[in-house]
């Protein structure tokens, strides 16, 4: 086989037959090449609560190279409700007192490590704001969970500066979100050729086809299409961007937009949320949400008081099924992005567990250099 640009001679420890046997059922899905890329990935996970536990479980099982868990906070009783690794750590230490002086990262890392001895699992208890550019540059992907908008934006700026891929996600009761900034991401899709040949050029505002090759495989004609997605940072996406142009043109589409998007945006813009269980807190939050809803151009009737009440009830709370769904989707996207053979999320997922919907919106305020308008 000719050497590929991907291969890094320093990392050329061959994937062993034992590893192939262990990862058998997933290699059959995404192939050997993707597994080799996953196997070289170094990932930083910031905050280990329920969502972080799900993500770390999924990535460590998949066989990445290393996972660094950064979380300076101590383990609290409420963390044990849905945070199963912290619960196990507490058990092993015979109660929370046994974890005295340990951060969530330190408590969880040894438990996470046991899932897969082939992955290097490290704990970091330093505050994230003290990390410098070189720190972020040492990872392939950075994932920040359960943080406020200011922290998310700060970390995202750092990963942008280092040219690294970034994800943020959060759980609020039955609601949640995933955001991704992959800067610029190329991937290759193999498929049977349709009657119309795929041509290089823009496919959407963010996606462009950069290369097409066709090959005959017996009776089938297979095309290998290289695509590139362009992304925006959190501040220019989640905090301020309008919905994509095709939404504004359709009343039906606007009506179908999840009002949870307005609620999330209100939460991001009002970090010092007054006690939401108080009347004043509820009223002030409602005003902010209504403002965001109007700003997005959404019809007022989709934002009912019940939607706002439900959302507020869950703010800051994590429950296992929502963490499992969001953590599963996020980790799957990370794995696909590492393998570079699938269409990744572009760029914001709004999850509403009440109606079991996970809608994806491409939020960009001013895209530079992408495919431009399709």
């Amino acid at each position: 086989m000719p050497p590929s640009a991907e291969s890094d001679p320093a990392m050329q420890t061959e994937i062993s037959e034992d590893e192939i046997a262990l990862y058998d059922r997933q290699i059959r899905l995404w192939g050997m090449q993707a597994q080799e890329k996953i196997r070289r990935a170094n990932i930083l996970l910031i905050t280990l609560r329920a969502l972080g536990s799900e993500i770390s479980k999924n990535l460590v099982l998949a066989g990445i190279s290393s996972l660094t868990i950064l979380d300076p906070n101590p383990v609290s009783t409420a963390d044990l409700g849905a945070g199963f690794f912290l619960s196990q750590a507490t058990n092993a230490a015979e109660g929370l007192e046994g974890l005295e002086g340990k951060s969530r990262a330190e408590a969880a890392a040894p438990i996470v490590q046991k899932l897969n001895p082939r992955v290097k699992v490290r704990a970091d208890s330093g505050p994230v704001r003290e990390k410098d550019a070189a720190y972020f540059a040492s990872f392939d992907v950075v994932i920040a969970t359960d943080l406020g908008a200011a922290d998310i934006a700060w970390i995202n700026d750092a990963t942008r500066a280092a040219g690294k891929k970034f994800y943020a996600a959060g759980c609020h009761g039955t609601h949640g979100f995933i955001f991704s900034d992959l800067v610029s991401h190329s991937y290759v899709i193999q498929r049977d050729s349709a009657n119309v040949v795929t041509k290089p050029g823009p496919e959407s505002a963010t996606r462009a086809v950069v290369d097409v090759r066709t090959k005959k495989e017996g009776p089938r004609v297979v095309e290998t299409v290289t695509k590139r997605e362009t992304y925006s940072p959190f501040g220019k996406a989640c905090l301020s961007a309008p919905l994509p142009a095709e939404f504004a043109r359709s009343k039906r589409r606007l009506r179908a937009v999840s009002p949870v998007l307005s609620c999330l945006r209100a939460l991001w813009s009002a970090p010092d949320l007054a006690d939401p269980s108080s009347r004043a807190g509820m009223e002030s939050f409602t005003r902010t949400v209504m403002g965001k809803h109007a700003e997005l151009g959404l019809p007022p009737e989709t934002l009912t008081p019940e939607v706002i009440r439900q959302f507020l009830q869950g703010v800051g709370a994590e429950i296992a099924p929502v963490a499992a769904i969001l953590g599963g989707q996020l980790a799957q996207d990370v794995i696909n992005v590492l393998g570079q053979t699938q269409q990744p999320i572009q760029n914001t997922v709004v999850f509403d567990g009440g109606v079991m919907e996970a809608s994806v919106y491409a939020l960009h305020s001013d895209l530079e250099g992408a495919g431009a308008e399709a």
Partner: protein
Amino acid sequence: MAVARDQYNQQTLGESLNDKLKKSRVLMVGAGGIGCELLKNLVLSGFLNVHIVDLDTIDLSNLNRQFLFRNEHIKKSKALVAKEVAQTFNPEAEVTAYHDNIKDERFGVSWFRQFDLVFNALDNLDARRHVNKMCLAADVPLIESGTTGFNGQVQVIKKGVTACYDCSPKETPKSFPVCTIRSTPSQSIHCIVWGKSYLLSEIFGVSEESSFDNTTNSENEGEIEELQREAAALRNIRNSIGTPEFPRLLFEKVFHTDVERLRSMAEMWKSRTPPESLKYDEVLSRASDALASKDSLLRDGQKVWSLEESLVVFQDSLDRLSRRILKMKEAKAETDPDPVITFDKDDEDTLDFVAASANIRSTVFGIDRKSRFDIKQMAGNIIPAIATTNAIVAGLCILQAFKVMKGEYDQAKEVFLTPFAPARLLATDRSRAPNPKCPVCSTYQTSAFVDLSRATLNDLVEDFVRLELGYGDKEFTVNSEAGLLYDVDETENLPKKLSDLANLQG
């Protein structure tokens, strides 16, 4: 008040649902891919009384996704290990584990009735159908889920309210026409099925012709007769197992003589490329390099073997299997049936033999050869499975469970994962209504308590069905899993005791 462990559940779900979950009793069938994730979610969500049933033991290839299991658990019971680990997630949870088959008679309808909710976390049609039937009979809501690769789905099944598992027909495993397998293969899978279900079983097992579609019609009648003669001749070669001549005899028979006979049938190759027969000594004479690298060849499952390399593996695996069966014959008692070796994807000897034979046959018919890794998947019907899909599906099962526990069946939807769709990651559909023609849930169901050792079929027919259920003089039939027990013309079973007739259930 001190912060409680379940503060967030309380906050999100509300006190009344949170309390209801804690007092409920639920059953989870299957502790594998979905099961591990689901059990974690159950105990963390406040389902404190969970029963789990799984017959399976833990295998290395489970560990990439069944996160409750680790290397040291290999070969242990999935149900028992899952219970031990999941209980550490929530000390209040009480998990009861059964290392047993859910079809066992101790899990009868009355046993199912004790549960508020049942979860299927299974990987096969048969067990799913069984639990579906039991839940309908016991009138317990069922949450049914499944995954393959990136895809997954969840549905709620409630008797009389939503469609049941059998309301829509399910795909059954594919069988191939016998002539495609034996005479005119055109794809790798045809050669693999030939190696597994024909060649391996004719030499080391019992004929497995049932996996072929043996339908005869005027066109292929003659050919099928010919094929049966051919198989009989092959069985004769079995007598030379263990002799030095055996590999050559077998090779010459199936890759030369039989192929030459096929080639001679000009009709068959009018629109197809005719096969090219092989000579054992000729291939072997080119195989010295392959022979020298035999060990590395056998280790590397990813490599696509050449014809010569396939021959080397053919010889080697044939030798291993021959020695095995001779040993088995030696060990057997006079009265024991003849030993057999059947295909198992995790039995390397059988896999090597099938892979090598399939590749040699592919060469004969001008079909691309495959790696052992790929052949294992096709021969063993391996379905790709990953942690994330299972995690997402198991999360959805719990959201559905919340609706069911609140009695909000109108809000329980069918949910599908839609991987790589640009606008949404999940698609939902309103639960379908029961299919009035469904053979499973459209029928009237009832249960009766009888002493099987005393009651006769006549008691059931006359006293229960005709009198109690009011069938009177109407005509009806009584069936069991074994078949027909009673109808108007079939009355000889009437005096028999129910315990002697069958395993009557449901």
